[in-house]
Each structure stands twice: as C-alpha cells, then as structure tokens.
C-alpha cells in the first residue's frame, strides 16, 4: 500500500476516524498498532510476524536490562539482542550477496562453483526497523532511556505505520515519551500534517515519478545515449532520488502529525551543501546521526590519530553504503563518500576558496561530486558506472530523449532548485502566515487535486523501499 495510492487514501481515512473516535489512550494505541500491522500485511502478511518476533525479543531484553546490574550479564544481553537483529538482517538482505561473492572469490582460484539461484524475500523496511530496535536496546543498555514497560508503547515505536517502511529512523528517546502524553485532536496540527503530506506527495508523485521516464532508459543502456543525455539524466536522478525519499519522509511526518505524533525531519536542503560532509548532515539525517552515534563514535570517532579517524570515517560510510543494498556498487559508493569525507578533513579549504562570494561555486562542486557518486549508486553494474563517467567526460554520439522529456527534466530541476533557494533565503513560516485561512484551505485542496491530475500512469514504489 503506497502512500500515494487510493488504497492508502481509504486506509488513512478509516484509521484516522477510528483513532479519534476512541477515547481511551490505550485503545487508541492498540488501534494504531493493529492498523500498522494491516498496513504492513498488505505486502506480505507473514512478514508481520518477523517484525513482531524482532520487536518482542528486544522488548524482553530491554526489560531484563533494566533489572540486571551485573555488567557481564548486561553485555551478554546486549550482544544477544544485537546478534539476533543483525543475523535476521544479514540473512534476509545479504545472504545471497555474501554467497555469490564467496563463490566468485573461490572461482577465481579455480573452484568452478555455480552461482546461487535461490532467492530470499526481502522484508520491507527491515533495515529501518532493525536499526530502530538496535538503538532501543543500546540506549537502554547505556541507561539513556528507560525500557518501555507498556508493550503497546514499544509496539507503536517499532510499528507506527508512517515510518515503518522507509523511515525516518526514530530514536526511542524521541518517540517513547510521545506515547506517554495525552493526545487531543488539534486542528493546527492536522493542518501542519496535511501541508507536509501534500509537499511530499508533490515531490514523489509528480516530480520523482515523472523523472523516471528520463532516468530509467539512460541508466538501462548508457552506451546508447549521447553525452548531453547523460549530463541530463544524472542530475535528474539526483533530483528524483531526493524527491522520492524526502517526499516519503514528508508524507510520513505529515501522516504522523494527524495522529498527534511528531517524527524527526530527515532532509534539510541537501543539494545546497558546501561540502560532502555537510551533505551528510542534511541528507537522510536520521540515518547519518544513527551511524554517527552507533557506529562511528563507538569505533573511536575522531578521538584517535588522524589515520584512525579516516579509517573510522571510511568504514562508517562503507557500512552506510551497504545499508542501502547488498551489491558491490553500494560498497564502492560508501567507499567513495568515505574517501571524500577523509580528504575534506585532511585538506581544509584554502581561505581564498572559502570566501562567501564563492559559495555558489562550492555548492556546484559538491553537487558535481554527489552526482558522480550517484552514478555508482544507480548503475546496474560498476562497469556501467565507469562507462557513464567516461561518456560524460568525452563527446559521445548517441540517441537523444524526446524534446518534451528533456523539457520536463529541466522544469523538474528548476523546481527543485527554486525550492532549495526559497528554503534557503525565504521565510516560509512568515509567508504562510500572511495567507488567509480560507485561501490556504482553497490552495491546499487545489494542490491536492492538481497532484492527482498530474500523476503519471505508472507510479513507481518508493526507491528506499528496497533498502
């Protein structure tokens, strides 16, 4: 059930009406948990039990951690919980990749083993909820949060449908206190949620889905397209993946507001970053901060030697790359970003280049580096990425996309650029404040109708679902 489908429209209306019709907070939480299971079960009902199993193990481990003082027992419990979570993640997401890579390695030494032909169903959102359960147990272990005693609170933390499939990755310290507070129907919050949802819907259903018509054919057969088309398709992919994922996050934040819950903001004008380091502070913020707190800092962070710091950075970014998918191009993507981050740390920008007047140049340079990285991320194989890079820097002949698609791509790029400019320089709150409520309502309905009208025929699932 996609957020931008009619089925979700009905599901949301029923869940929303039922939630606010109930008066008892426990019943409301129970209703949301049931609705979330239904939401997840529309993909594969059996995989609901997998989440419930993971969640139940971590819930029980956390309760035990609260009552145990022995450091060795606490460490053992933590290790048990993390091992179970990571084993499931590795099994479902990485088993095939590990097997085929091992076989490939053995075949290099003349083993002649066949490639694996089996497939394992990838449970939707497993990377997201696994990270959430790990952060919960680790935070309880570190005594940063108290274990949830009410199972409904904990179940809602893991299963709450707006963030269940593709984040944002929420922390227990952020969400669990919200389950304790009384919820009152709030028109202002509903309006805020509706505006977030509409913004996300526009990004996903109008911009990202239309851009697929440019991106997909070029990345599918890069050898057949001209240099100019590659220079169009790559930035379009950067915009597509941003609109797709930030659109989902906006819709998730908006949907959560309708039930009186707040989710963290996941994107903050990422393509206006002055460096790749800044980009990771603005892009998928909840993943970046998770990796910082649960991988980079525990590895030693920047507390050791420079070489150790660079090693930690590269390792963290490789894990980040692998988190996105089980393939070598994701490993190389992480490595690419890790090396750039290390270089940025090792070679600070000279004063002459750090001048304010050169800000647009720094932003453009960072965007170029990001686009080069996204080619690795999106290409079907590393050889395709290499081919695209080569064709991008040489003048290659090849086919062109239809004129109207080129125009569409340029309009989408211009819209996202304008959105970044407005977000950077404009004051959206003040601007919205000036609009009379009735006009705002009229505008919101108009935008919703326009989005519905402009949606393409084939709406793709969210890119980050596969992660």
């Amino acid at each position, binding site marked *: 059930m996609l957020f931008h489908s*009619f*089925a979700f*429209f*009905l599901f949301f209306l029923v869940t929303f009406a039922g939630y606010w019709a109930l008066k008892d907070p426990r019943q409301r939480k129970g209703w949301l948990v049931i609705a979330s299971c239904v939401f997840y079960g529309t993909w594969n009902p059996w995989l609901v039990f997998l989440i419930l199993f993971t969640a139940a193990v971590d819930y029980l481990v956390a309760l035990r951690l609260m009552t145990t003082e022995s450091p060795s027992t606490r460490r053992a419990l933590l290790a048990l919980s993390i091992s179970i979570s990571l084993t499931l993640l590795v099994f479902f997401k990485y088993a095939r990749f590990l097997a085929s890579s091992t076989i490939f390695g053995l075949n290099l030494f003349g083993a002649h083993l066949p490639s694996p032909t089996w497939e394992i169903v990838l449970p939707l959102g497993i990377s997201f909820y696994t990270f959430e359960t790990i952060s919960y147990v680790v935070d309880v272990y570190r005594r940063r949060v108290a274990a949830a005693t009410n199972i409904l609170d904990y179940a809602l933390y893991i299963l709450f449908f707006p963030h269940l499939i593709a984040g944002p990755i929420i922390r227990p310290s952020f969400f669990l206190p919200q389950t304790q507070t009384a919820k009152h129907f*709030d*028109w*202002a*919050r*509903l*309006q*805020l949620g*509706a505006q977030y949802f509409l913004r996300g819907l526009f990004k996903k259903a109008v911009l990202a889905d239309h851009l697929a018509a440019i991106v997909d054919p070029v990345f599918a057969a890069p050898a057949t397209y001209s240099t100019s088309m590659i220079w169009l398709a790559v930035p379009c992919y950067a915009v597509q993946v941003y609109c797709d994922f930030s659109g989902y996050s906006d819709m998730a934040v908006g949907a959560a507001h309708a039930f009186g819950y707040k989710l963290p903001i996941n994107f903050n004008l990422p393509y206006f970053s002055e460096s790749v380091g800044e980009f990771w502070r603005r892009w998928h913020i909840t993943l970046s901060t998770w990796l910082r707190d649960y991988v980079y800092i525990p590895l030693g962070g920047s507390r050791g030697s420079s070489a150790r710091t660079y090693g930690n950075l590269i390792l963290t970014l490789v894990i980040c790359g692998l988190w996105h998918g089980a393939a070598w191009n994701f490993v190389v993507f992480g490595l690419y970003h890790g090396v750039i981050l290390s270089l940025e740390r090792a070679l600070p920008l000279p004063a002459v280049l750090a001048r304010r007047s050169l800000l647009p140049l720094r932003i453009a340079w960072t965007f170029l580096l990001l686009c080069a990285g996204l080619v690795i991320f999106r290409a079907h194989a590393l050889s395709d990425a290499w081919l695209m890079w080569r064709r991008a820097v040489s003048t290659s002949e090849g086919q062109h996309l239809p004129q109207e698609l080129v125009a569409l791509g340029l309009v989408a790029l211009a819209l996202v650029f304008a959105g970044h400019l407005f977000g950077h320089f404009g004051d959206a*709150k*003040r601007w*919205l*404040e000036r*609009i009379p*409520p*009735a006009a*705002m*309502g*009229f505008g*919101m*309905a*108009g935008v*919703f*109708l326009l989005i*519905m*009208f*402009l*949606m393409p*025929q*084939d709406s793709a699932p969210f890119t980050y679902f596969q992660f």
Partner: protein
Amino acid sequence: MPRNFHPRAARRCILTAAVVFVIATLLGNVLVDHCPLSARFPEADLALKAWRAHISAPGIVFLGSSRTGYSASVEIIGPKVRQISGDAAVEVFSAAIPVGDPLTMNFMGSHLFADGRRSKIAVVEITPDSVSRRNRFLDFAVTRQFTFRDIVENRGDICHSTNKTLSRVLSSRLTPFYTHRLALQAWAREKWSGSEHVIPSGDTGNYYYDGIWGQSSIPQELPGPPPMMRIEEDLPRVRKQLADYEIPGRTSAALEDLVARCHRDGIKVILLETPMHSALRALFVPSVSQPYGQFVRHLQDAYGCQFVDFSDRLSDSMFFDGVHTNGDGRAYFSALFAEEVLGPVWRAEIGSRHE
C-alpha cells in the same frame, strides 16, 4: 505560532479544503460523465469514427471483445464473403473492443445504430464466462463508460463482482481526477494542441490493440511468457468467475438488450461462441454449460438468432493464451467462419432481398 496555525484558523483552513475537495469531486464526477468519448473511452471513439467514415452502414458488423477482435480479420472475411455471395459491395466492420463485455457491446450497439444507419447482420460474441453475473471485466466498464446512473443501476452486480471492481468504482467516483487523470490529460492535450490523442496503453489490458483490428496490429507471436503459462495464470481467475455460476444479472441483460434492439431494427443476429483453448473449455462443467445453454436457447427462441459454436474448432497451437488466437488461428478462423457461416448467410440475405 503563525496565524494560520491558530486552532480556529486551522479549523477554517481544513474545513475550507474539505469543502473545496468535495465540490471539486462532485464537479469531477459531472465532468467524467459528460466528457467526450475520445477522452474516457478512446477505443470506442476510434471504432465509431471508423464506422461513421463509411458512407452507408457496412452490411456485416462484429460486436465483441478482443477475442473477436483477434480471431475475426475483416481483411480476410470481407473478400471471402464477397466471393462466396457474389455481392461485391458487401463490407465487413469490426466494432470489437478490448475487454468488451456484453455491457460494452450493448454500449457500442446503441452508439453504432443511433444515427439510423444499420447493418444487415450483427455477429455478437457470446461465451459462458462473458454472460456470467460475476463479470470480471466490470472494473473496466465502470471507469470507461459507466455514468453515475449506470453505477446505481448496476450496484448489485458491482457488489457481486470482484473486490477490484468495487475499489475501482470508489476510486473513480471519490477521486475522479486521479482515476481518470490519463483520460483528462489526453483530453486537455487534445484541446491544447489540436492533435488526436493516443490511447492510454495498458488500460485495456490488451496486448497489441492500436485502435484498429487490422492484420498489421496482430503479431504472430507475443513476447513474454509462452501461451501455456499465460493460460495457467488466467485459469484461477476464470475458475473464480465461474464458481456459483449464475446468469441473471445486468451483464446478460445487456446482451439480451442488444439482441432485442437488433431484432427490433431488423438486423439479423448471429451469436458467435468464439474459439477457446481446451484448457479453458474444460472449465465449462455442466453446472456452467446447462444454464448457459438455456440462456442461448432463450435468445434464439425469443429473437430468432442463429447460434454458431466455434469454441472447439481451432487447435490449441493457434492461441496466444486461453482466448486470443495467434496469426495462424486468426487466418484459419476468419476463412472458416466466412465459408461456413457468413458467406452462406449473406447469400441468403441477398436472395431474400431480391425476392
């Protein structure tokens, strides 16, 4: 908190948005019910335009679904009928529509003969599954041809049909700008650029239909899975449709309505049971074939129709899937049908006119 996010202002904003949305939805429903056929049902529009391009009504018209469209080649049947009957002027026209259930056939019949020009013979497709009350093609009819009134009139069959049909009715009426966006976009493009719009591909569930049933549009083989795999995919759906088989309903009533109209207008009706793969025919067990046979006999008795059964006349190698013939099947069926049925019937028709 900004003025707009004050609870009272927010309430006003949300309620205004809701009212505007409801009004727009109602207007959208009116728009969908009254938009030109070319926008909402371009397949029918193309067929009607082709029909109107004839100075006088073609003598023989085929009314059916893609089964008829695939099997009956007017380019083969026309010359054959002219040769057998000796009438060089007879024309054959295919008004078959992809996913054309009896509701669609009746819709086409009412539009084709609306201007008073009538064929002499109408070949009307009929199969046990197509007249079942549980109509699995209803979800196409509800979006491309049903008005709000049609939905109210067909509510019983809609509820009796698949969940998908109900969902499509709801989405069509609650979010018309979403469900009909392709049709409305095409209409807007047509108005804007003045050019004919392209049929939204994929909406018909058909493989190669491009607005005509010409020979060139039907390939010899289809890309993708082999025929048997397609049939095996389709069998559970047909089996589900035939479970608790019953005929009385709006779908069979539409077929009877079409036949009655032809009867009133003096058009001879040939009910054609189109060719089918043996795997599909095996599903027509007595609990299906008996009520179906009674229904066919009722049509024959009440309206003097001729019924011809070609369901088992083609070998299984002549199909793309369970019901659509490939190039060989198309050529074979067209020639056979012209020689055995249409040629002699048309010759008799001319004879009776001369008398």
